[in-house]
């Protein structure tokens, strides 16, 4: 009886000590990767839904936008983030050592520059005062910077920071003579085109490069785990090509009301990093200096 009592006291003491401390993020020892529900990241979501990441002890935290992913990543000190090169550059500027380990896709017409003035007229006049609507600290800025550089256009660009969610709801006056540039992506771009805006440039042009990557913090995944993860994602991409319907059924919970047809048509706006395109895409990444560290990408 005394033995049992002493055991109980010891147990209670240990419980009271250990109960006070916990590492909230490493509590379950999982590798946490944050990804938005962007179509380009669906191979990872597919693998997650199918339970293929369990062996690697990887959990995916799914957000509604790149910006949200970045917020969550910084707030919770996660291990990996699915993003474009813009967010990756930002993270590395803040003294964080991130390694791009997987390329998912390249935006292929999904990101666009629109204007209320037709392209020929816009380039001919090169007005001195232009209103630019974009979301700051987002991929929009990549397009705009390339645009200015390529067109050698030094005007008084008045930047108006507008959330992409608001951009398609906003009542732009398309018929005013003041030139406007609207930098956006699908599905907002289609809605604006219906309102009379003209397509000026898009990521179909090899100069306007936007890639989607998975980057992880150095040391969060071992080399063989990275290769395993690459294999899982590559398999998911293959599955999408072979059986898109089944792929869609697995990931559709992340898309709200998006139908299968809409899902298929949205695939036209990106090019997945598959076996056929690997060489070409790596060349582009190197040529246009999209990334500095590509040792893992080359192995994908």
């Amino acid at each position, binding site marked *: 009886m005394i033995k049992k*009592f002493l055991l109980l*006291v010891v147990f209670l003491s240990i419980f009271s000590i250990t109960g006070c401390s916990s590492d*909230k993020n490493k509590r379950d020892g999982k590798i946490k990767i944050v990804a938005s529900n962007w179509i380009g990241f669906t191979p990872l979501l597919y693998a997650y839904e199918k339970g293929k990441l369990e062996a690697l002890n990887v959990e995916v935290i*799914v957000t509604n936008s790149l910006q*949200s992913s970045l917020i969550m990543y910084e*707030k*919770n000190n996660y291990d990996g983030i699915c993003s474009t090169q813009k967010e990756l550059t930002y993270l590395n500027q803040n003294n964080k050592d991130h390694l791009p380990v997987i390329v998912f896709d390249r935006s292929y017409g999904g990101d666009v520059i629109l204007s209320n003035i037709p392209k020929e007229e816009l380039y001919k006049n090169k007005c001195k005062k232009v209103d630019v609507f974009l979301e700051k600290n987002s991929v929009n800025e990549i397009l705009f910077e390339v645009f200015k550089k390529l067109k050698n256009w030094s005007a008084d660009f008045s930047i108006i920071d507008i*959330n992409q969610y608001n951009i398609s709801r*906003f009542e732009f*006056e398309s018929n005013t003579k003041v030139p406007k540039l609207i930098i956006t992506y699908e599905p907002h771009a289609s809605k604006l085109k219906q309102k009379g805006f003209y397509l000026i440039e898009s990521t179909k042009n090899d100069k306007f490069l936007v890639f989607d990557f998975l980057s992880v913090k150095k040391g969060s995944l071992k080399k063989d785990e990275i290769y395993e993860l690459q294999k899982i994602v590559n398999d998911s991409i293959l599955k999408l090509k072979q059986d898109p319907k089944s792929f869609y059924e697995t990931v559709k919970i992340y898309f709200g009301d998006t139908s299968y047809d809409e899902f298929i048509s949205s695939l036209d706006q990106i090019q997945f990093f598959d076996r056929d395109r690997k060489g070409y895409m790596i060349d582009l990444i190197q040529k246009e200096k999209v990334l500095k560290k590509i040792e893992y990408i080359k192995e994908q």
Partner: protein
Amino acid sequence: MKKLFILILLFSLPLFAKPANKLYKVVVLEDWKPYYFLDENKKPKGYAVELFEKLASNIGLNYEYVIVDSWKEADRLMKEKKVDIIPNMGVALKRTEYITFTQPTDVFEVELFKHKSLTEIRTVKDIKKHSVGVVLKNVCISLITEDIAQTKILFQNYHRALAALNDNEVDILCYPKPLVNLSIKELNLENIEPLGEPLKVIKRALGVVKGEEHLLDLMDKEILRLKGNGEYQRIYNKWFGIHKDIEMDFEQLSLIILALGVIVLLIAYYIRQKKWILTKKELEQKVKEQTLKIEKNLSELKNTTLLYEKEKNKFKNMFKTHGSIMLLIEPVSGRIIDVNESALKFYGYSNDEFLQMKISQINMLDAEEIFKKTSRAKENIQNRFEFPHRLKNGLIKTVEVYTSPVETEDGMVLFSIIKDITEQKRLQNRIIEQKEEFETIFNYAKDGIAVVDLQTNFLNCNRAFIELTGYSKEELLGKSCNDLTIISDREENQNAIRKAIEKGHVDNLEKSCIVNGRHITVNMSISLLPDKKTLLFIIKDITSLKIIQEQAKLISMGEMIGNIAHQWRQPLNVISMSASSLILKTLKKNISEEDIQKFSNTIVKQTNYLSNTIDNFRNFIKGDRRYLNISIKEVIRETLSLVGATLESNYIVLITDLDDDMFITGNKSELSQALINIINNAKDSMIDNEEGNEKLLFISTKKLDDNTIELKIVDSGGGIESGIIDRIFEPYFTTKHQSVGTGIGLSMVEQIIRERHKGTITVHNEEYRYNNKHYKGACFNIVFKITGQE
């Protein structure tokens, strides 16, 4: 009685009615605790299942379960009539197309739960920039739009989402309230608390597919019965209240009680050893002290609260009653959230009307423009704006708006102070228009205009000035007036400027300048401008006028020589005759001393007369420029000495009436020139007029009052034609042949009288009688002001 029996039977039938012996398919979810879940034997359990089973048993329903994994699937089966009943489901309008619901069995609120550490989150409005967790396939997916929160995290299941909230991985969780409340109680999650503001209230009920509505009556009655007898409440409490099945053997329980008892004893002993247990007196004292302390703290807290309330009210009153127009605007939607009394008065809307409005209903700019400006204000890039604002009565006012972002309890708002500047703007525009008008006049004036400082440096000049001087504007702005003046005139120039500064202005300065190697003559006036710091120069190029004046003078001199010839003829004759008589009498040797004296005197007298005539002529030609105090009578007399003989030779009778005399400040030579001009015109008109009447010239002076004198010159030349009489003082206007007149004569007369002698000159035709004869002629009236007496 028979009828009553039949009636009772009819009403009682449903009570005895039992559903047909059909096997109903009942759809349930495999995991939607506590409504539906599967126990370890894969048998459906949960609140909805237990309630349904109770109800089915009471009404004798045969059924079997169809288990699905999602609401979407359950919905599809109901829609396709592959199942008949669902025990519990949200009542939604779109579902009523294929499902008929019983009366609600329960309701639940969809609620937001937050991590306790986030004290700044108080209402739904505060969560915009926070991360909100939602569970896939849950109603919250569509409820949390980006208007509510921008960062949305999609969790695979409720438990993962709950854990994320508890660990503050996400800030907020959106989920049905009863389920989260149950989890909080059961798992003792102290980090989670509800926001207390339901996002949506969902009624839940039992549903049957269309075609099976006959079951509803029975089910509704049974639900009522269960609610009435407390059975329903028991089931509800079982699943949603605190419910723990504690199963513990007695030995374990005894052990825990014993252990706790020992711990308490050990602690008491330890405290006693440390003298932490106080005597009753000490305790009372301690309690008293603590009570006083608490009362003091409470009092301070109350005072602080009162002070806070007072300050709050003070600022609220300041806002509400301030004389400036003030608005509070929600920056994203543009909704007006508060206004003060000045705003109500200015715009004409009531407070309630305002609170239903957006700023775009007042601001006349297009929505995009307002958005851009609002964004700038929000980010503190720009805070002052000018907008056209529409009042309720339709009037558009120009307003100056100072807008700043202000943090409030409800988040960031835009605080705008508005000033009506419509009138100010109108005046500004008027001033701008006037300025443009004056600039146009300034630039297009034919006279040269320049503004100089008191050191005579050029500050501005117009085009005519530039053309006149031959310098560019830039060159002029680096120069002084003196640089443009010939050296000999500089002192005179300085004197004129000094005079202008002292007296306010100087007129009719004639100056010679050299422009591009060409001599020009300008007439200049200088005025001291009201700021007393600058001078206005107005110059007129009178070079061509001067040349014509000189030509006119030469013509006058030609005429003068004619006059002299006439004037000298008679005295020369007298001299000649006197000399001849002297010679003749000498030759005849009958000359007496008396004769010599007489003829010599005559010759001397005539020679003096000739000498005087020459002096008058020379004075006229020399043109003494001095302006002195002169007698009008003297001027007329001298003029007549020059032209008298000519008049005589043309048989013109001169009638003078010069009784009145006055002194004026003037120049004899100029005035004589003017009078000669008038007299010559009169002479010419009388020569031309061949009507046979006598040629009469009347010259008279008459005091009009103590200060003015009128000089009147009337001829009998027939008068001036009515069509031209109003134009005779215009430069270059002449009725004479080119060889006779230059057209400068009378215009120069007018200039001499009006500008240089401050007099007036008018002309009209006059008809009069003289020596019983009727005459008509031109009458020149010249009026001078008296300036003094010699």
